[in-house]
């Protein structure tokens, strides 16, 4: 019990550091750029336009509002993709500091995921814009968007912890994970309807691809104006927390050895 209390106290002591790190990431990202934060909205918008031009002809059937369908999938996947890639380098990038001052190391990983989440919130602005332009219907269910963001945030933290710890010991992880995320993107129904897949692959995606749960949840709220099925809803929480527990376990077990491998 007292161990738990100690941990919470340590986290509270360093929560301002977390805040400073997130603010730094966001500030430095757009320093010296002309449009600055607007890029966080503009970027997903441009990708959406390009992909709509390319894919809308191929997958038009079966999808009502292709731009919104695409953007909902892309925002979710892009968050997990960029946050975990940034988190992977979080410990190594701060090696110089970790060698000199005692800081709870998970703060750095958490900060990267959190600043990616701030980006995610910005890109909801792009979604809003596209919904207005395409005259989509706004549903009350969209108020539940923070729930799915919380789910995917927890999930990304879990992956981030695993990757940042593994990257200290094996730098190969960087290349493996790059290839992995490309494959992952193609087996996630971002720009095609899941019905298009052959039955066996569809079964695999709907059951074993965590991103399917979060994207489906998100689309239920935004595109279809309904609450997600219990399967999607609870599945998303369970996958998220299992991944987080696993990530924390690995990180905690290896963190004392980080300093010997920098």
């Amino acid at each position: 019990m007292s161990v738990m209390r100690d941990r919470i106290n340590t986290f509270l002591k360093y929560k301002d550091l977390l805040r400073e790190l997130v603010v730094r990431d966001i500030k430095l990202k757009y320093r010296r750029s002309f449009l600055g934060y607007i890029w966080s909205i503009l970027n997903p918008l441009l990708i959406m336009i390009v992909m709509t031009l390319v894919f809308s002809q191929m997958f038009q059937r079966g999808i009502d509002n292709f731009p919104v369908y695409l953007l909902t999938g892309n925002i979710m996947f892009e968050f997990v993709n960029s946050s975990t890639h940034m988190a992977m380098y979080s410990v190594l990038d701060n090696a110089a500091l970790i060698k000199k001052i005692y800081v709870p190391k998970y703060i750095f990983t958490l900060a990267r995921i959190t600043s990616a989440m701030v980006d995610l919130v910005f890109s909801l602005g792009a979604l809003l814009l596209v919904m207005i332009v395409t005259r989509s219907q706004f549903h009350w269910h969209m108020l539940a968007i923070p729930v799915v963001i919380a789910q995917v945030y927890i999930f990304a933290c879990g992956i981030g912890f695993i990757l940042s710890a593994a990257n200290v010991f094996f730098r190969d992880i960087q290349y493996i994970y790059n290839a992995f995320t490309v494959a992952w993107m193609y087996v996630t129904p971002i720009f095609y309807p899941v019905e298009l897949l052959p039955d066996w692959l569809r079964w695999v995606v709907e059951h074993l691809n965590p991103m399917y749960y979060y994207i489906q949840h998100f689309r239920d709220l935004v595109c279809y104006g309904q609450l997600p099925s219990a399967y999607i809803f609870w599945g998303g929480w369970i996958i998220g927390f299992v991944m987080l527990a696993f990530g924390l376990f690995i990180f905690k077990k290896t963190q004392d050895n980080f300093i010997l491998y920098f």
Partner: protein
Amino acid sequence: MSEEYIVDVDDLTIRFNLATEKVDNLKEYVIKLIKKELMFQEFLALQNVNLKVRRGESWGLIGVNGSGKSTLLKAVCGILKPYRGNVKTVGTIAPLIELGAGFDMNMTARENIFLNGTVLGHSRKFMQQNFDQIVDFAELRDFLDVPIKNFSSGMQARLGFAIATMVQPDILVVDEILSVGDFQFQQKCYARMQEMLDGGTTLLYVSHDVESVRRLCSHAIWLDHGHVQMSGPAEEVTEKYINNR
């Protein structure tokens, strides 16, 4: 073991893997695993070191390069975990192992004061309250909104020292850091450290400058190749150390 020691290093051994055999990719790891060479050559940076420090004492750590002085400091700060033995400390530690570790070169001095302060575990509110004091001590008011990559190393050291010493810590840990910075600033730093000592702070101090150890410290510990060669009153230990060379 008892409460009377503020720093209690008990039979401490610290182990490193020698960098020559660094395995950091999967292929090498698998090959080594198969050939059963994975137990790399180990290097003991400290062996069976004991250091008992009472509140208000000041200890100098002396020894040649590579004798394990900095390793001992890092173990006290909690950066390195013991391989064997125990390290216990009571109260807050202000680590001055490298001034401005954790500065982000692309950010301004103002932003870095908050970043570095929170790295040291202070709250944002606390930093706001002490902001002026830091800026005054570092004498950098005119350069607050300049990215610190444009600062000289002396200016960075000043800022780092000012941030790290703004509170009265229970334990002040200082590693050979004052070699940068001009004479005037060094005097200022010594004065600040003396002020803290008078206020009851415990000091652990690494320096190659035996004179400054004699001036600041009541006790000294002499390390040689990871072993304690001698520890005791500063006068005696430094005397032996100098004669030994």
